[in-house]
C-alpha cells in the first residue's frame, strides 16, 4: 500500500530488535504507530523518546482478550489500523526433538505461530471490510529450510507462519489488502535475552548464533519498501538460497520418482 495513505501501524514485539526498526521506519514516514510488546519497562523507555505519534501497549501475543483490549485502545487513540506487523517472537530452544520438553515446544508454537494468527484474527477482518491495509508477518529463514541444528521447534512455527502468510495473501488480495512474509537471517537483536525473560531456554541456541552486519534499521527500511510495493516476501540474507533450493530439489525428486513409478 501507499505509505502516505497509511493512518496507523500496529507493531508487535516492537520495543526492540527488528520490531523497533520497523516502528522507526514507519514513524519516519509520518505514520502514527502503536508499539505492542510484552516488556513494559523497555516499552516505556522506547515510547518516552519517540514523540506523540508513537504509543505503547503492553501485550502478550498469546492473550486473545489482551489483543481485543489493546486493539480497542489503539484505535481509540490513533484510528483504524492500516498496517499490522506481527513481529513478536522468541528464539529457538536449541534442542533436538528427542530432548525437547513439551512445554518448550508449546511456548514456541504459542508465541511464534499462534501469536501471529491472533493478530490476524484481531485485525484482518476489519482490513478486508475496509478494502485497504497491509499485514507483515515475521517468519525467518528457518521458515524456508530446516538445516540448522537446534532450530526444530522454531522452524515448525516459522514454516507455519510462512504458510499462513501465503494463504492470507491469496485470500486478501481480492479485497485490496496486502500480505508480506519477512524472512530474516541473523540480525543484531536481543532475541536471546528476551526469550529468557519469557521463560524460554536459549543456552544451546546461543552457542550457534552467528554475527551479523544487518541491523534492525536496515530491516525496517526493507519492510517499509516491501509494504509500498506489496512484495510477497522479504529476504534479508541471500546466503541461504542454496539450502532453500536444495530442499525444493529434494521435493522435486520425490515428485519425479512418483511420476515415473506411476
Amino acid at each position, binding site marked *: 500500500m501507499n505509505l502516505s495513505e497509511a493512518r496507523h501501524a500496529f507493531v508487535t514485539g516492537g520495543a526492540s530488535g527488528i520490531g523497533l526498526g520497523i516502528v522507526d521506519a514507519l514513524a519516519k514516514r509520518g505514520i502514527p504507530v502503536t508499539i505492542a510488546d510484552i516488556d513494559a519497562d523497555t516499552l516505556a523507555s522506547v515510547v518516552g523518546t519517540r514523540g506523540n505519534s508513537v504509543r505503547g501497549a503492553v501485550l502478550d501475543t498469546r492473550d*486473545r482478550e489482551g489483543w481485543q483490549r489493546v486493539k480497542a485502545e489503539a484505535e481509540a487513540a490513533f484510528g483504524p489500523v492500516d498496517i499490522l506487523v506481527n513481529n513478536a517472537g522468541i528464539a529457538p530452544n536449541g534442542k*533436538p*526433538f*528427542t530432548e*525437547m520438553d*513439551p512445554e518448550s*515446544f*508449546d511456548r514456541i*508454537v504459542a508465541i511464534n*505461530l*499462534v501469536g501471529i*494468527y491472533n493478530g*490476524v*484474527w484481531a485485525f*484482518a*477482518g476489519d482490513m478486508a471490510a475496509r478494502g485497504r491495509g497491509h499485514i507483515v508477518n515475521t517468519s525467518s529463514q528457518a521458515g*524456508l529450510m*530446516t*538445516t540448522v*541444528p537446534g532450530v*526444530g521447534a522454531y*522452524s*515448525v*512455527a*516459522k*514454516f*507455519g*507462519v*510462512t*504458510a*499462513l502468510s*501465503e*494463504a*492470507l495473501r*491469496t*485470500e*486478501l488480495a481480492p479485497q485490496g489488502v496486502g500480505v508480506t512474509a519477512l*524472512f530474516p537471517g541473523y540480525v543484531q537483536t536481543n532475541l536471546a535475552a528476551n526469550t529468557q525473560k519469557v521463560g524460554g531456554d536459549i543456552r544451546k541456541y546461543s552457542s550457534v548464533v552467528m554475527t551479523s552486519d544487518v541491523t534492525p534499521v536496515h530491516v525496517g527500511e526493507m519492510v517499509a519498501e516491501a509494504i509500498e510495493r506489496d*512484495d*510477497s*516476501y*522479504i*529476504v*534479508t540474507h*541471500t546466503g541461504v*538460497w542454496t539450502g*532453500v*533450493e536444495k*530442499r*525444493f530439489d*529434494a*521435493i*522435486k525428486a*520425490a*515428485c*519425479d*520418482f*512418483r*511420476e515415473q513409478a*506411476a
Partner: protein
Amino acid sequence: MNLAEAKHAFITGGASGIGLGIADAMVARGIAVTVVDVDQAALDAVQAGRPSERFRTQQLDVRDRAGWARAKAEAETAFGPVDILVNNAGIGPDGSDLADVTLEAFDRIIGINLVGVFNGVTSFAADLRARGRGHIVNTSSVAGLFANAPGVNAYAAAKFGVTAMSETLRAELEPHGVGVSVLCPGYVDTNIIANTARISGETNDYDGGGVPGTPMSTAEVAAIVLHAIEQDEPYTITHPEAWPAVEARMNAIKSAFEAAERRNHESV
C-alpha cells in the same frame, strides 16, 4: 528400514482412511500393528474380522499427552517395542478464509494436526534412537508444500509445520539409524471431511477445491508408504501433479532472493 525386521507398528488415525490402509498393508507383511484412533466405534468395527494376534486397537486423542504415555505402555506390553510410528491422525481444512476461521477451529487444527504429531514424536523418538532402529512416518499433505489452495490456511500452517518437523527429525535421527519420512498426500479417497465435521461439531465448508489430481485408493497410498519406509524416502508424494504449485512457490521465493541480492549490491 527393512520391513522384514519390523515387529510392531503404531499408527494414529488408523481406524479409517490412509491410516487403516497402512495398518492392513503392514499386517499383510507380518508386522503386528497397534491402531489408535479417537473414534472408538470405528476402532471396534475395524477390529472385527482382523487377527487379534497381529492387530490391536486403542482409543487415543493425539492431543492427550497422558493418553499417549498410557497407549504406548499398553501397546508395548502387548506387542513389544514399537519399530514404526505412523503419525497419521489429522482433521481436514476448515474451508473458511483465515479472517473468518473461529479461534476454536484454528486451535483444533493446530492441536491435532501439528501438536498431535509432536506428541507422537516425543513419545517414541528417543526410544527408537536408543535402540538404533526404526522409522517414523508423519502424514503431512500437499498443503504442507504449498499454501495457496482455497480454504486451507490453518491446515496448511499445521502441515507446513509437520513438514518442517519431519525434515529436522530426519537429520537428527539419521546418525542413529532411524529413518523419517514425510508423507504429502494429495487427493485420497478417505472420509476425512465427514470425520472432521464429527470431531469439530461444525459443518465444514471445505470442498477439496484446488487439490490437484484424482482420488487415490488408501491401499495404493499404503503401498507407497511401505516402499517409502523400506527405501527411507525423505519426502513421499502420492500426486506428482502437485509439483507445478510447489514450483511456482519456489520461483516466487527465488525472485525474492534475487531482489535481495540486487538490493545488497546497490547498498554496497
